[in-house]
């Protein structure tokens, strides 16, 4: 009778240990607390383990949207100094049945962010071996920054080009007006000879005529 009572008391934990040690539906967890927190690192003890099991139970509750999961459903074994251990999740309905790996994985991935923050760790320092961390989604911008900078640069350049072109056009126009003014003066003074159609009529060409005689093309050396 005594053995029967002993067996009844000790059996569930032993069965639980066996369920955990089987390792088929379990996940290994690794924590690197000192790496993450340095001098502010907390010590890993039974209370922390209790906290961890409660976060896992919370994740299972959130994933299945049922309030049936409890800490006793989370079984832990293979604890080491690294701070690593293996955990399995038993079904709240039947303590001998394990929740399949895939569902545990989905539950953990859904709440990884909350679990990380609960322990002041990150994806690098709190590893679930076999569950890849959800990488940060690429940030989408309504207007990409490069377009803004490009717009600014092109705007400045366009303004520069336009202002330089305008200034040279106005300079040319002013020079032309000055030249026309002088030409008109000269034409006014010499109106009479115009009737004969002399060479003065060619004064209309302001730039003059390019005189081939002064061409540099024949600059030959003594060779």
């Amino acid at each position, binding site marked *: 009778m005594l053995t029967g009572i002993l067996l009844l008391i000790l059996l569930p934990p032993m069965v639980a240990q066996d369920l955990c040690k089987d390792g088929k539906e379990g996940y290994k967890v690794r924590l690197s607390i000192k*790496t993450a927190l340095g001098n502010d690192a907390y010590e890993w003890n039974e209370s922390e383990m209790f906290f961890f099991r409660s976060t896992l139970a919370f994740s299972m509750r959130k994933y299945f949207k049922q309030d049936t999961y409890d800490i006793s459903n989370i079984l832990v074994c293979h604890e080491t*100094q*690294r701070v690593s251990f293996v955990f399995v999740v038993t079904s709240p309905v039947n303590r001998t049945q394990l929740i399949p790996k895939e569902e545990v994985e989905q539950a953990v991935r859904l709440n990884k962010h909350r679990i990380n923050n609960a322990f002041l760790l990150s994806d690098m320092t709190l590893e679930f071996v076999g569950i890849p961390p959800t990488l*940060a989604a690429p940030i989408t911008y309504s207007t990409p*920054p490069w377009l803004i900078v490009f717009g600014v640069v092109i705007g400045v350049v366009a303004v520069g*080009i336009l202002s330089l072109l305008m200034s040279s056009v106005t300079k040319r126009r002013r020079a032309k007006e000055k030249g026309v003014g002088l030409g008109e003066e000269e034409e006014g003074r010499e109106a009479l000879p115009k009737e004969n159609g002399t060479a003065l009529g060619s004064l209309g060409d302001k730039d003059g005529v390019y005189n081939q005689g*002064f061409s540099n093309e024949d*600059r030959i*050396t003594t060779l």
Partner: protein
Amino acid sequence: MMDAIDNKCTDPIQATEAKDAERPKWDNKAQYLLTCVGFAVGLGNVWRFPYLCQTYGGGAFLIPYLIALVCEGLPLLHLELAIGQKLRTGSIGVWYSISPYLGGVGLASMTVSFLVGLFYNTILAWVLWYFFHSFYNPLPWHHCPTKPNLTEYIEECKQSTPANYFWYRETLNISPNIESSGIIQWKLAVCLAAAWCIVYVCFIRGIETTGKAIYVTATFPYVVLTIFLIQSLTLPGATLGLKYLFSPNWETLKNPKVWLDAATQIFFSLSLAFGGLIAFSSYNPEKNNCERDAVIVGCINSATSIYASIPIFAILGFKAQTNYEECMNSNINNLENTFNISDQNITETNYKEWLTYLNATNQGLDGSLNLTTCDLHTFLNKSASGTGLAFIVFTEAVTKMPGSQVWAVLFFIMLFSLGLSSMFGNLEGVLTPLLDLHIVPKWMPKELLTGLICLVSFSIALIFCLQSGNYWLEIFDSYVGSVPLLVIAFFEIIAVVYIYGINRFNNDIEWMTGRRPNLYWQVMWRVISPLMLLVVFLSYVIVEAQKQPTYSAWNPYHAQNLPYPDWVFAICVLLSAVPCCLIPLGALYQFIQLLNKHTNRCTAEPYDVET
């Protein structure tokens, strides 16, 4: 009829004086010096010299470099500045004046300037692209992009590094080999258009506008280099990089390739034989101390190279240190996970003891551990030059610094100013000969001409925006910017010393500067520099001919060197040969002209140089 001829020939002096009055001028001496310095100091000072210094035994490389500067760089520089200042025309006019048969030399200079300008501005377009993307947080080359299911990174990026991926895939979208051209990357084409627009706005009226822009573009890089110098010396691992860079390895001096590379580096670094320096000095007043200018420009160029290599190598040392620490940490993690040791028990300092202890207590397990050997020197050796340094190695290092956006923005603005001031010289080497040849119609304003030059260059440079564009750019860089310049420079020095006449040249310099060039210049010009140029040219050709022409094609899995296909190699040879062939072709054309010459043309010189 004789009277008519006499009238045409009696007053040439007034004509040249009038032409001189309308020739553009520098506003002041500082503008001229800054422009020459800006032209000489370019991207190569930042990304080629440190690499050479490190490859060829650190401080020991300074010896062949300085010898090359004294024997080859300064004499050629002085020669170009003096001849341009005396003859007061661009490259074609100068060589044509010395002998009509040498007009081809100027034409070759102009062609090389144009071709180099094409690919140089494409590099600036890439710099602009990186500049635009430096305003992202985090920097886009910091992390690999993720797959849609957000569980892992893109395969191509996982195999290489995020910086590599961003450069080869997101920027260039490079094709696997040079035969597959792919399509034009419109984003790069837009950046190229922006780069040419910026060049145009600075170059729109020739030296009138570049002279103003140069105050900023030539001085800004020094400001940024100083900022980087101060910041990089505070980074961990900086002293490691500097020690590695400057610790002399005297053994390398026995290798002739070191001397060859030093000579070619000085030559290309000073931007000789482009015709740009001749054009710049032709706008000087006639009496200007060109000897002092040449020494100033040459020394500033070399000093800048040395000055720039300090922050570059401090940052590379920092990068090597960081990579080493990451490597060690991953090994330590491996050990801790396998043997369930509490984390932070194994550190870098006691790593070796732990390893031997674990080896002793767990025989046979070590083989299965996959520990990578972390050697600091291997990481330091992973230096690079050229675009690899700027866009891969340096960008990776920047991501590890605090405040990476600021450093990235500063770095790329610095690269852009360095390149922009060199572009001014390249384009001036094209514009001034065109203006002096009088082939431009009188009605065309200068603004339109410069705009046309920029537009034509932009259209041709669109080939560098193809997916195989980077391969073509490397071809242009190695074949256009090398052998033709050496040939042109050799003809330049022979032309001035032996055809124009060294005595006449000495007299000119005495008239311009007030002092006859001393023995150093005489020895260099007459003997040493031409000889050195010939030796460098021959050795360069021999060394290149012995190598199989290959290029490194992008492959994320492993480095890949492919040989050039025949038609590509033919283009390479053409690129080198065409500018060189313009020299004999110019002489031939002149000979044909001589045969057809009329006898009633005015043959008196506008001014006699010897009186």
